[in-house]
C-alpha cells in the first residue's frame, strides 16, 4: 500500500491536491482512500491531506503515521513542529519539498541522507498543491501522465478553463522534472486490523484541567509568533510620498502591524505583517507598494 501525506498551508490547494492524487491512483486501477485533516480552515494555517492506494480494499483508517512519501508545498512548514511534516519519517519514507534550497542541504539539515528530493517551483508558479501532485505521481512510478491529467481535469471541473490549463501545465512540469526519480517511493506493507498497532502519538491521556487547558499568565505573548512568514508580497512605504496622515494604514491594518511614531511616520512590522496588502489598497497618496517577498532586502 502507498501511504502519502501532502503538507501545505490553507489556500495552497492541499485538499484539492489530495483529491487529485487519489483520483490519479484510482484512474490507474488502484483502490484509494483520500482525506483532508480538518482543523482551523483558514488561509495560512498548516493543513495536510493524505492518500492511501492499494491493490485491494483498504481497511486502514486515520492519519498516516508511517508515510512512504511526504510532499511539502510550503518549505517554511518543515521547521514548525505543530505542522507535523516530519512525523513518521524517522525510519523510512521519502520527503519531497518544493524549494530552491538544494536537496543535499535539506538532507544534511534534517539528517535524512538520500531521502529528500526538491523541486524549484517553475517560473511564474506559486507554491501550489498541483506541483506536488505531479511530483508525487511520478515518484510512485505507477501513474502515467494521461491518468494524472484526467484526474486534475476531473477535480477542477467547474473552474475556469485558464485555471485548469495553468494547473495542468504545472503538474506536467513537475511530472517531467522528476522523471529521473520515477519509482523512488517504495510501497509499505498492507496493514491488517489484527496486526495494527494503535498510534501512540495521538493518545490523549486525561489530564488535570490546569495541564490540559493551561492558563497563560503573561500578556501579548503572541508577539513571539512570526506571522511575517506567511507573506508572499511585502508592502513597502515610500516615505517621500507618505503624507504622515498615520491613521489610514495603521487603523485599517487588521493585525495592528503598522505602528506610528509621534511625528506620524508609519512603520511596518515585517516580523508580523501577513501581507494582506490592505494598506497598499487604502493609502490615499499611494505611498505603499507591494514587492515580491523574494526580492525584498531585509529592513
Amino acid at each position, binding site marked *: 500500500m502507498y501511504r502519502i501525506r501532502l503538507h501545505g498551508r*490553507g*489556500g495552497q490547494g492541499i485538499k484539492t491536491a489530495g483529491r487529485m492524487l487519489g483520483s490519479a491512483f484510482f484512474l490507474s486501477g488502484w483502490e484509494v482512500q483520500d482525506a483532508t485533516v*480538518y482543523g*482551523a*480552515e*483558514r*488561509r*495560512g*494555517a498548516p493543513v495536510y491531506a493524505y492518500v492511501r492506494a492499494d491493490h485491494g480494499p483498504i481497511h486502514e483508517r486515520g492519519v498516516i503515521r508511517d508515510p512512504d512519501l511526504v510532499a511539502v508545498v510550503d518549505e517554511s512548514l518543515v521547521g514548525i513542529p505543530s505542522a507535523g511534516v516530519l512525523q513518521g519519517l524517522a525510519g523510512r519514507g521519502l520527503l519531497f519539498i518544493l524549494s530552491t534550497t538544494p536537496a543535499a542541504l535539506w538532507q544534511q539539515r534534517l539528517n535524512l541522507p538520500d531521502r529528500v528530493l526538491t523541486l524549484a517551483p517553475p517560473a511564474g508558479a506559486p507554491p501550489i498543491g498541483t506541483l506536488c501532485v505531479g511530483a508525487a505521481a511520478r515518484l510512485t512510478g505507477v501513474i502515467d501522465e494521461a491518468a494524472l491529467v484526467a484526474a486534475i481535469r476531473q477535480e477542477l471541473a467547474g473552474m475556469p478553463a485558464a485555471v485548469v490549463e495553468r494547473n495542468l501545465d504545472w503538474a506536467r512540469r513537475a511530472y517531467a522534472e522528476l522523471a529521473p526519480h520515477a519509482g523512488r517511493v517504495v510501497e509499505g506493507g498492507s496493514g491488517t486490523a489484527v496486526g495494527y498497532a494503535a498510534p501512540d502519538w495521538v493518545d490523549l491521556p486525561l489530564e488535570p484541567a490546569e495541564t490540559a*487547558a*493551561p492558563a*497563560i499568565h*503573561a*500578556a*501579548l*505573548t*503572541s*508577539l*513571539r*509568533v*512570526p*506571522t511575517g512568514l*506567511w507573506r508572499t508580497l511585502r508592502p513597502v512605504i515610500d516615505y517621500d510620498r507618505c503624507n504622515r496622515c*498615520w*491613521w489610514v494604514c*495603521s*487603523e*485599517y*491594518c*487588521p*493585525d*495592528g*502591524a*503598522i*505602528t*506610528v511614531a509621534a511625528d506620524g511616520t508609519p512603520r511596518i*512590522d515585517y*516580523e*508580523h505583517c*501577513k*501581507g*494582506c*496588502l*490592505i494598506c*497598499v*489598497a*487604502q493609502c490615499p497618496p499611494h505611498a505603499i507598494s507591494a514587492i515580491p517577498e523574494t526580492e525584498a532586502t531585509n529592513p
Partner: protein
Amino acid sequence: MNETAFKRLKDLPSQRLLGTGTPLCAGCGGLEALHQIYDILGGRSVFVNAAGCMTLLAVYPFTPFRGAWLYTAMAGAPAGAQGVRDALDLLLAKGRLPPAEDLTVVALTGDGVAYGMGLSATSSAIERGLDFLYIVYDNEGYGNTGQQYSEATPLGAKTATSLRGFAGRKKDLFAIWTAHRPAYAATVIGAEPLDLARKLEKALSLKGPRLLLALAPCPTGWDFDPKDTVEVGRLAVRTGVWPLKEYVDGKVTHTRLPHPRLPVEDYLRTQGRFRHLFEPVRDEALLARIQAQVDDYWAGVT
C-alpha cells in the same frame, strides 16, 4: 452625542493595544474591527470568547490580549460573562477589589453563536440585565470550519453547504436585541472606524447589556482578495446592505444614510460567493430580489 472624544479621524487612538502574531487570516475584517475596539477598550477587560475563528486568538502559550480572556463552548459565552461579572461584583462587595480596578466584561462571538446557537443564553442574559458588552464578528457563516451557512448568511450567498446560493435570508439580530430593550445596541464595521469608535464610546458610558454587531468581511469565506477587505466593507455600507445604526433609550438612529445609495450589485460583484449571480448568465430574478430586500429596508427608514 456632542461630547464625543472622537470628532475626527485623527482623534482615533494611535496606539495598537491588541498584539500582533495572531493566527487569524490575512485581511480578516473581524480582527480589524476587534483591534479598533481593543485600542479604545484596553486591557482592563475580560473577554469571554465562544468557540469560533476568534478562539484561535489565544492558543496556549500565545495571547494577543493585555487583559484576561476565557474560552467557552459555543452557546456559553453570555453565561460565562454572567459568571465573571458575578465574581467581580462579589469581590467589589467584599472590598477585595477596589472599584477603580473593576473590569469590563465582554462576550466575543461569531455569527454562528450570536444569531443561532447562543441566542437563548443571550436572550436570558439581556433579560437579567447583565452588565456586559457583546461583540459579534459577523462573517455570515461558520468561517472557522470552512464557511458553512449560518443564520446570518444572506440570500444568494454560496457557502460550503449552499453551493447554489443560500435560499433563506439573513436574520435581523439587531431587531432581536432591541426587542429586549437592552441598554445599547449598534451595528459597526471596521471600514468605518470613526463611527465604530463613537458607538463603542457610547456603549462604554452605559451599564447593562450592550451589543456591538460588526460585519466582518471575510476574504477566505466570501472569496475576495484580502487587500479588498476595507473596500468590500465600505461598499456594504454604501449599497445599504449593512445599515449603520444604534439603539439607545428606546430609539433607533441611523448613523450613516447612504446617499446616493449604490446598487447592491456593486457590493455583490466584489465577492466570489455571489459570482454565480453573474456568471455564466445573470440571475436577474435573484438580483432583483436581493435589491428589493435592501430597498424595502430603507423604505422603512425615516
